[in-house]
Each structure stands twice: as structure tokens, then as C-alpha cells.
């Protein structure tokens, strides 16, 4: 059992994927990437071995946010953008629960941006799954805060004007202790990332590239098409040199002049300089620099995997500690003493 979940009761019997499927009919569009993520999560949950009554999924609003209805756990489908705040109240008062947040790119980064960054800096014990399809699915296809500049949608017939967020960069900037990126179609990778996220004490942000085949089909093809992917995807593994491309022909090195990272062709000369990925580095600088390698338009040089995983004090633990310390210092609260206070007078009948 991981440290992050040490207070959560274990399941009595061995669980299977079936145990985590609710009786509700799944209603995403056929072919939607959300199905794959749901299957991966349902498939992964038994591995945690937690009592499923102690697992809660909280979501906002959006196609992806229907997720909790399909999990046979406790769940709340809340309001647009507010899931991290609601989950914070639940997780900070109930440390015996494993609390998961499901959110979309609009939900988490537009209307709920404030809650997301504050959840990350606070480091509440939450696992946030951010389904990024680079579009507003539920409201039928407006551009989102992760859409590429110039995106033509119903609300931007001449192309969108605003530069997108890179959710991973944003999370690292918001003091996140755990930040990862994965892709809906890569079940194995997705599951491995979930495993590491679940294992992390505190807030974990997992960005999941998710295809919306109705309003933004093929948004991540550059990362999925076998041929293109070789050039586009940088798979990060802690402790491994950062190499990609056909036969690892490309690598990431630090530019000694600027200190920034750049992609080079691996040669006898550059090989020794290839950066070894350190997800546990105390400083977020390299993780941030890695997140900036991706081209927001072509998605070339998109790192996936765990960019950053460092332990920081966990908010709900600290909160509980303060309650214990208060009792130690002042004794358990005595209501009649509290109400009476220090300055009273008595009227005799």
C-alpha cells in the first residue's frame, strides 16, 4: 500500500474491473476518447485494492465530467469548474477517502482555473484527471483555453486569437508536486501514469490527451500515428536519458549558452550530453523547460509521462495535525467553558 492511501480502508475481497462499473449506460459519442480513459481507470482501480466505498470521483461540467456516473463508487457531478474546490472540502475533512477529480480543458483551465491552481499549490490529497480535447465538447465545439491559435470554431469563424495554456507548464508554475501527461489511446502508458499518480501523496495532476471525434477529431494524431509519433512524442522515464525518434536518434540536451533545453540529433559528440530525466528534482526548472519543448501547433516534441514527482507537505495532513496540536495544547474543547468565557456575572433569582 502506498503512503498516499495509507488511511484508506482496504477492500476485503479481490476486486475486478466489473466491480467499478456502475449500472448506468455510458452516453458519450461513439468513438469518443473518454471511453478509453474510463476503461483504463476501471481496469486500474482493482490494483489499488481500496474499499470502493472509500473512493470518490468528483467532476465539474463537460462531456468528460459525466465520468463519475459510470464509476461504481461514491461520486459527485458538480458545477462548471468547481470540482477541485468541492473535492478539497471532502479530502481535507475525510482523510480515509481516495478522492479523484475529473475535469476538462474548459472546466479546469477556463472557468475553474483559479480553483485548479490553488488546489495544486495547497497540495490537498487529490488526483486530478484533466481530459484535454482542446475543445468545448459539451457545448458543441467552441475553442477552449488549450486550442491552438487560429482555431476555426462556431465562436471563432475567423480563427481564435488567444494563445493557449500548456496545462503541464501551468501546473508546474502553480507549485504542483506531481505533474504527468498521457494519451487516451495508450492504455498501458495511461495505466502506468495513474499508478504513479495514485501513489503520490498530495495533489497529482494528470493531463490526458483525449480525442473528441465530433468537434476536434484527430487533434492528437501527430502523437498517435506510428510514423509521426516517433518524431513527435518524447517518452519520459525517470532515470533514463531523454531520447526519442527512430531508434532513439533524437535527444534532449541543455544548451550551455542559454541553460535552456533543446532537441539534438544523437551523435557521438552529443550522446554524453543527453539529459537524464529526473522527475524527483527539487527544482521545477528542468521539468518546466521540458514542458516547453512541445510545439502547441504541431505537437512536435511533446513530452509524455511523469514530468515531476516531488513530495511536499500535504494540506489535509497538516490540517489534521493542527487539530491534534490544538487538543494537545488546550485539551479537548469544553463547550460550557467556551460559552462562559472569562467575564461573567450572576443574577440570583
Amino acid at each position, binding site marked *: 500500500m502506498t503512503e498516499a492511501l495509507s488511511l484508506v480502508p482496504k477492500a476485503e475481497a479481490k476486486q475486478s474491473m466489473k466491480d467499478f462499473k456502475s449500472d448506468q449506460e455510458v452516453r458519450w459519442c461513439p468513438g469518443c476518447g473518454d471511453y478509453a480513459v474510463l476503461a483504463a481507470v476501471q481496469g486500474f482501480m482493482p490494483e489499488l485494492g481500496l474499499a470502493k466505498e*472509500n473512493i*470518490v470521483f468528483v467532476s465539474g461540467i463537460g462531456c468528460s465530467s459525466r465520468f463519475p456516473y459510470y464509476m461504481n*463508487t*461514491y461520486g459527485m457531478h458538480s458545477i462548471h469548474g*468547481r470540482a477541485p474546490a468541492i473535492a478539497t*472540502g471532502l479530502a*481535507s475533512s*475525510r482523510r480515509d477517502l481516495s478522492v479523484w477529480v475529473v475535469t476538462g480543458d474548459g472546466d479546469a483551465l477556463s472557468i475553474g482555473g483559479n480553483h485548479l491552481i490553488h488546489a495544486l499549490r495547497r497540495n490537498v490529497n487529490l488526483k486530478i484527471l484533466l481530459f484535454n480535447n482542446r475543445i468545448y465538447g459539451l457545448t458543441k465545439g467552441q475553442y477552449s483555453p488549450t486550442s491552438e491559435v487560429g482555431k476555426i470554431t462556431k465562436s471563432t469563424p475567423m480563427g481564435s486569437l488567444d494563445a493557449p495554456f500548456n496545462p503541464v507548464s501551468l501546473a508546474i508554475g502553480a507549485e504542483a508536486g506531481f505533474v504527468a501527461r498521457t494519451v487516451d489511446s495508450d492504455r498501458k502508458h495511461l495505466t502506468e501514469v495513474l499508478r504513479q499518480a495514485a501513489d503520490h501523496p498530495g495533489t497529482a495532476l494528470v493531463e490526458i490527451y483525449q480525442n473528441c471525434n465530433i468537434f476536434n477529431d484527430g487533434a492528437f494524431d501527430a502523437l498517435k500515428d506510428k510514423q509521426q509519433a516517433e518524431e513527435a512524442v518524447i517518452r519520459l522515464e525517470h532515470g533514463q536519458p531523454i531520447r526519442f525518434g527512430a531508434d532513439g536518434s533524437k535527444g534532449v540536451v541543455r544548451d550551455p549558452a542559454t541553460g535552456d533545453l533543446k532537441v539534438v540529433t544523437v551523435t557521438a559528440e552529443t550522446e554524453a550530453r543527453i539529459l537524464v530525466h529526473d522527475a524527483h528534482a527539487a527544482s521545477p526548472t528542468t521539468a518546466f523547460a521540458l514542458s516547453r519543448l512541445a510545439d502547441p501547433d504541431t505537437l512536435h516534441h511533446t513530452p509524455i509521462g511523469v514530468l515531476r514527482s516531488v513530495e511536499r507537505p500535504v494540506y489535509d495532513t497538516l490540517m489534521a495535525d493542527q487539530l491534534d496540536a490544538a487538543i494537545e495544547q488546550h485539551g479537548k474543547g469544553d463547550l460550557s467553558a467556551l460559552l462562559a468565557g472569562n467575564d461573567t*456575572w*450572576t443574577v440570583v433569582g
Partner: protein
Amino acid sequence: MTSQVSSPAEKADGSDGAEGAESAESAESADAAHDTVVGEQRSTPGRRASDKEVRRLDRVIIRFAGDSGDGMQLTGDRFTSETAAFGNDLSTLPNFPAEIRAPAGTLPGVSSFQLHFADHDILTPGDAPNVLVAMNPAALKANIGDVPRGADIIVNTDEFTKRPMAKVGYETSPLEDGSLEAYNVHPVPLTTMTIEALKDFGLSRKEAERSKNMFALGLLSWMYHRPTEGTERFLRAKFAKKPQIAEANVAAFRAGWNFGETTEDFAVSYEVNPATRAFPPGTYRNISGNLALSYGLIAAGQQADLPLYLGSYPITPASDILHELSRHKNFGVRTFQAEDEIAAIGAALGAAFGGQLAVTTTSGPGVALKSETIGLAVSLELPLLVVAIQRGGPSTGLPTKTEQADLLQAMYGRNGEAPVPIVAPRTPADCFDAAMDAARIALTYRTPVFLLSDGYLANGSEPWRIPEIDELPDLRVQFATGPNHELADGTEVFWPYKRDPQTLARPWAVPGTPGLEHRIGGIEKQDGTGNISYDPANHDFMVRTRQAKIDGIEVPDLEVDDPDHARTLVLGWGSTYGPITAAVRRLRAAGTPIAQAHLRHLNPFPRNLGEILARYEKVVVPEMNLGQLATLLRAKYLVDAHSYNQVNGMPFKAEQLATALKEATHD
């Protein structure tokens, strides 16, 4: 009510020793709990040796006014504590600017504290002060308009120099140009005398000067025969880490007292007997509305046997509740200062889902931000207390002033049909009971509840009879533990929206309960199962059911006070209780019959309200808004409710209300 409280008159000239206050408190440790029996402490100051005249009054209104930096709120608080300990009934009105340090010596920077105390039960902080303490020209100028002719004015003459006077537009000194002729002015060089009194303390002039408010307090304490040991104990506790400052303040306080005792200018001192008949037997303390409300929340958590969870974002005048609850973590109270009001209520709602007694505290603009989440709570049918301390609006409005203009926001400020019960306290101490009542409704009916207080109640204070724990209501609830429904095929299942037939409340099944895993959300739910449903008939049914649940909440019948079978009823809600009741007394004393009733529950209204309204020829509704309750009454009961409104950021004055009510009874 008979009482064994000894009459202070017996000891009025206090020739019982002259040990001074030093010995009076020596045995007390600084922060030890302190209880006195009313009247007994009259013997403790014990240094009244002169034979100055002592006059008996039945009530007095004092206003301390000075610069924001002069410590007027603290001075007022201390005088209040002394007065409470003495056993008078009292009511207070702090009035301060929104700026933390408004420019010194200016009119907007004036801070004041009014205290009304009496030998009988009183209801308001008083209309017009009998005594004004003005620490500088700005304080005089800002307050003189409220002071009736013949009243006492104590001025700090040291501040009446050219520049400070010019700053507020006094071309000549009002102390010399005869403009204050109609008043009984006492010129006192407060600053100089304070510095003189502290000359042996080795303090800088500036440091010494800071104690001038304690000098003023000492003088007023002498004038009104207040017990002094509480203040000395307080000062020593407050400055425990700086004993020199503590002693300097005590010395200034005593110097003020002694000044009154010896100077010729103060020939008379006044006595106001304890309000022995105003108080039923019991143990009392003085309490402000926000403190009483905080205690009510803690008590509700204890009585419900649920951990209290507060999600809040600082806003005047609600922040004190966040501060207070944050101090009581040893009661298992969790306080969460969120990034904004939306997150604050979101966290509270999440905690409610997890089985906590969840609260969010805010004021007008914050309520606006929380509206969407309140709607979610209505849909989720989870218990949640939304504490709104109203202030002047719209927008940022008047943060430190009072108003009642958020009633309709509380009532209707959400999308869809989203009824929310509303409970409104009527006095500062009543905030305790109102908080517990709001918790009862939230927990019993699984609903968000508005607890609608205001700035006047929040900061005002009055004596409170401290309840015994066994007098408090039992608020325990039953979480769902197992299936509550049998399907046609005999399977036992859990239906999150299957209701209690009596209360229409749904089960509260908290995460961690095996077998009851379920999903809830803001999308319309099928009756019973709670599954998503877009069925038109189901939606119609659910909307009506949620409304019926709120309409069916048990609230006590409205009581009418109508000794003379009047034709006119005055109906109020919330903090106007004091001024309305005081006005009603005046009318009746002058022989004008008038009936009075006051609403605590604004949603649902008491069942008998319609019948009561129908009984009277005329219904007058005074409110600190433009007629919001009147609008509700007109809509629901088709009654021609007459509004009497004031929205100037201040509570009604009793006299003005009495005049208005008197006119209302005539036409």
C-alpha cells in the same frame, strides 16, 4: 422578577476604604475566568472619598469618538465590559470607517462607539448621546449633529490647535467661539495629562500619548461608577508580553479616574443601578453578534455530534466568524480560507457530502458569488449553512455599515426554482440561537439554509444569559447505513432520493458506507433512484417536491404582542427588533395602541402569518432596505403592507420610528 442583587445605592458614597484598585484585583491572574455576583463589586473600587454629588439616572447613552488610530473601539469595548459586569442592561453600536487607517484627523477617519446602559431592559444603542467624548476636532465635528442640547461634551483640548481644526474646517475654535454654548462642555487636556501621568515610565512622548484613550476611559468610569478591576485585569493580560506598556495603560486609566475625583470641573457623578429586574436569574456575559453566531455554530456541531467545517473567504463584516472559529480547532473545527467565495462554499459542500456540519460565511457580494453553488446544494439536498452578514450594497457598497437589502437575494438569488430556508436573528445574543436553529433545519431537511444577520448585529453587543448545555437542542442525525428500497424482484437497493415521508428529506449516505455507493449531481434526477432524468413530468414533480420540502419545514407560530387590541400591526425581521420594540414601547406609554410581531423565519413564513396579517387594519413594515419583506408579504398574502424604510447604513432610531409608527396609526 425578584432578585437578591444588593442595591448599589446602599454603598453609593463608597466610604468603604481607600486601598485603591491595586488590591482589588491582586488575587486574580490575568486571564483567569472571572465571575461576579451583580452588585457586589460596587465595593471594590473603594476609593471614592470625596463628597461630590452623586445623581441617580435610569439610563445613559455615551459616545466615544476619535480618530481611527485613537483606540475608540477598544475604549468602548472596555466600558461595555465594565457596564456588563456591573449588571446594567446595555446595547452597543460601534461605527467605524472601512479604511484601516483613514488619514488622521479627517472626518472620514472618525471612529466611534456608542453605548446605552440602563437600570431596566433596553433594546437599542440609543438615539442621541447624553455624553460625547471627542478626542479631536474631527470627532467633534462628525458627531455634534447627533448630540442634543444640554448634553455633556468632553473634549481633548490638546488637539484643538490650529492645524487639526483647519483640517475639518473650523476657522475659529468651537471651544471658544461660543458655538457650543448650548452644551455642557468639559475641556480636558487629555493628551498632556496622560503624558504627565506616565512621565516616570520612560516612554517616548508618542508611546505615552497612546494611552490617552485609557485616561478618557478612567474618567468616564469615575463619572458613572463603573467597576475598574476588569479593565486593569484586561490591560495586564493584553500586554502580558510588554508589562511596561500594561502598567502605563493602567496608570493612565487610574489617572483619568483620579482626575474625575479631584477636579472641580466634574462636580457630579452618576449612578445607574443594575438592571436587576431585566434579567432572569442565571450567569451572564456580554456578547457580540458575530461571537454569539460563532459559538452557535460550534455548539451546533457539538449537539449534532458532527465535526464543523467552515469554508470562507474574508469579507467585512463576516470575517470575525472565520477568525473566531479558527481559534477552536480543539473542538474538531476545520476552517478553510479558500481562494474565493466560490471555492469557500464549494469546499463546504464537499465537506457536507462527507458528513460534516458544513458552513460558509460571507456578506452581500460573496453571496452573489456563491449563488450557483447554493443552487447545487439545493439540487444535491445536502445540509449546508450559508451565513450572510449583510452590509450596505449594491456592489462593494458600505462594507462597515449595516443594511437588510439582501433578503431578496437570499430568497430568490438563484437560477431555477431553488427555495432556501431563511433564518434571521433579531439581537446580537440571539445569533446563538438562530445559528442552532439554522443548523436544525439544514440537518433535518438536508438543505442549504441562509442565516441572515447584519453588520449592526455582528458588531453590536448585549448581555447574554449563558445557556446550560442540557438546555441546548439535540441535533443528532442518522446517516444512512443500508438499503432503503426493495425492487419488484425483491432486491434490496439504496435509493439516494427516496424521501422521508414526514420531512421529505433524502437520506444522507456518506462516502465510506459500504453498499451505498451512489452518484449525485446538479442535473435533474429521477425521483427515488437519483439517476439522471430529463423526463418532463419527473422534473415538474421534483421541482414541486423540493418546494414542498421547504414549505413544510416546521417553524414556530408567530407571536403577536398586542395588549391593547390595536388596529395597526408593526411587523419586522432581523436586527430592527430593538428599535421597533423601543418605538412600540414609546407609543404605548403615550397611550397609542399598536401591535408588534417579529419574524425569525422568512422562508418558510410561520403558518399563522397570513391569519395574523388579516387581523389588522394596517400593517407597517420597517426595514433597512426599500421594502423587501413588504414585497414578499404583498405577493404571498395580498396584504397592503406599508413600508417604512431607511437605507443610510445605520440602524433605525427609536424616536424616529416611534414618530413614523404614530403617524401610521393615525391615517
